[in-house]
């Protein structure tokens, strides 16, 4: 195939398909075994400095916040993060100095709430590097190729643009149509973390919402940490196998964390904690404010339950539940913040 153009972005997380397959054969156990552990143990076992990491869900939705805070608490360094519409998780990981390279589809913003002061400051001052650009579908299909054990997936986006020029894609002449077509390279993150509604002790997980990229991400990641609102019996999984969105053999750790997406949304359970997000957006305007936030919510507590207490405990969580079901009015405290 004739290569017409090569993106100049750094190729992150790509492996030769034979090497990728051999890694899976050697390292991913098919044994149905208990994988439950604490967030502390999961991070200490599976997240290493310089890893390429990816977070499931989307933006502020269904995010493994317990793992994000634990990575900061354990002071991992030089991580590369998939900016696949990564918002609060990425902002706080870049702001805390754990992540210093990002491949960006959507990053450094909080959607309607505005831009992210902390991670933008790190990028604009050169402390965090954008190593490649892509789009959401571009990232999505990097996972898809990884999941399929293929070196790339052809696509008809990113063509003709700087997003494509700064990506790690290549444009070739399609041997069938004779037209230019984009090739999205496969990606296998070293470790991914995905928050789910329920899961058994082996890692068989159910998700009661849109799946975003998690089918593909869960299967292409080399190591996968599942955090779950609750642990359920294996018989429940077997009673409705069509509900299994992630099977146990791709999972390395299962961490039970009720309300584990806070301050992000857990669809059908609790809404975003806008007050908390506004506090982060306000504090993160300065490096000192970032330190203050981390000291208060990450370093002064050693587990997620204590963190939830700091955030207002059961009273706050009950409010967020009512908010999810439209029984409380919308608030936008970050709007007043300017």
């Amino acid at each position: 195939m004739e290569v017409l153009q090569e993106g100049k972005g750094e190729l992150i997380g790509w492996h030769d398909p034979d090497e990728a397959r051999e890694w899976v054969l050697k390292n991913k156990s098919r044994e149905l075994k208990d994988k439950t552990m604490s967030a502390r143990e999961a991070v200490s076992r599976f997240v290493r400095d310089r890893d390429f990491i990816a977070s499931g869900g989307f933006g502020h939705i269904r995010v493994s916040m317990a793992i994000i805070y634990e990575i900061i608490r354990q002071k991992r360094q030089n991580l590369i993060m998939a900016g696949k519409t990564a918002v609060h998780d990425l902002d706080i990981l870049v702001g805390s100095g754990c992540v210093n390279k990002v491949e960006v589809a959507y990053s450094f913003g909080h959607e309607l709430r505005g831009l992210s002061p902390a991670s933008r400051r790190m990028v604009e001052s050169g402390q965090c590097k954008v190593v490649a650009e892509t789009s959401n579908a571009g990232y999505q299909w990097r996972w898809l190729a990884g999941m399929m054990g293929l070196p790339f997936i052809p696509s008809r986006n990113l063509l003709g643009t700087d997003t494509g020029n700064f990506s790690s894609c290549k444009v070739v002449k399609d041997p069938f149509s004779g037209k230019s077509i984009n090739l999205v390279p496969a990606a296998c993150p070293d470790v991914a973390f995905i928050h789910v509604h329920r899961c058994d002790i082996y890692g068989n997980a159910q998700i009661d919402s849109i799946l975003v990229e998690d089918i593909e991400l869960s299967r292409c990641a080399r190591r996968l940490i599942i955090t779950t609102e609750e642990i359920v019996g294996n018989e429940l999984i077997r009673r409705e196998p069509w509900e299994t969105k992630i099977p146990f053999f791709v999972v390395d750790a299962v961490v039970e964390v009720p309300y584990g997406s806070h301050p992000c949304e857990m669809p059908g359970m609790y809404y975003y904690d806008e007050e908390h997000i506004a506090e982060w957006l306000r504090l993160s305007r300065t490096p000192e404010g970032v330190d203050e936030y981390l000291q208060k919510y990450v370093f002064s507590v050693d587990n997620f339950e204590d963190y939830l207490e700091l955030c207002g405990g059961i009273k706050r969580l009950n409010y967020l539940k009512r908010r999810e079901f439209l029984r409380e009015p919308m608030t936008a405290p970050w709007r007043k913040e300017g």
Partner: protein
Amino acid sequence: MAIKGIAKGKYNLREYLAFIGASVLEDKKSVFVGTGLPIIASMLAQKTHAPNLLVIFEAGGVGPLLPELPISVGESRTYHKAIAASSMHDVMSLSQAGYVDYGFLGAAQMDMYGNINTTVIGNHDSPKVRLPGSGGANDVGSFSDKLIIIIANQSKRTFVNKVDFLTTPGYLDGPGGRERAGLARGSGPYRVITQLGIYGFDEETKRLKLISLHPSISIAEVWANSSFEIIIPDEIETSPEPTEQHLKVLREEIDPAGMVLGK
């Protein structure tokens, strides 16, 4: 000059732009929406003249009946009473295959061919301002049949000769540009909405062309607020104005907290 209704205090600019955005959308079509005003415009269309508008969100929400303004294009509101709660692979694939009539995006900068930038202001590797990047925008601009762009602050700095970074494809370098790059034949930018007017694209040159001016806005203002030359046809329409009902739906049903529309 301000738009007449704004000068009279009947509505604000964001409300007006949401109304104009809605007016461009047709019933029984599909629209792939980005964050903010595009969602509001689609909700308003759905609650007024286009009840069967099929709204699609990039993270997997398909055909919701939106109860209130979602803050994110991936939250549970985006599949409230929906046809399907699906996945990004599903909706992006469907879009690539031709199921999306309208794409609807906001932008920081645009050139005369409708190429848009949402990635950086300044140089990519040492940016003056780092913006969020493509997100789903490059996909929406590549896959939708007709792309609608909202830029609330048309000026020489937003209507530029060359975008600092070409995030999302318009007509690229002009006629045939998209096809040469390998993008879907016949697809491309369709309407651009700003605080001054509604624009389309000249069929032959693929350059931005004025369609209508908002009430009380002059052509001189259009010229004064663009770095590139805009094609001005002989016949220019006046953009429509929202009714009380439109404003009531916007204020009471869609964005009562004033997140996007303001208070």
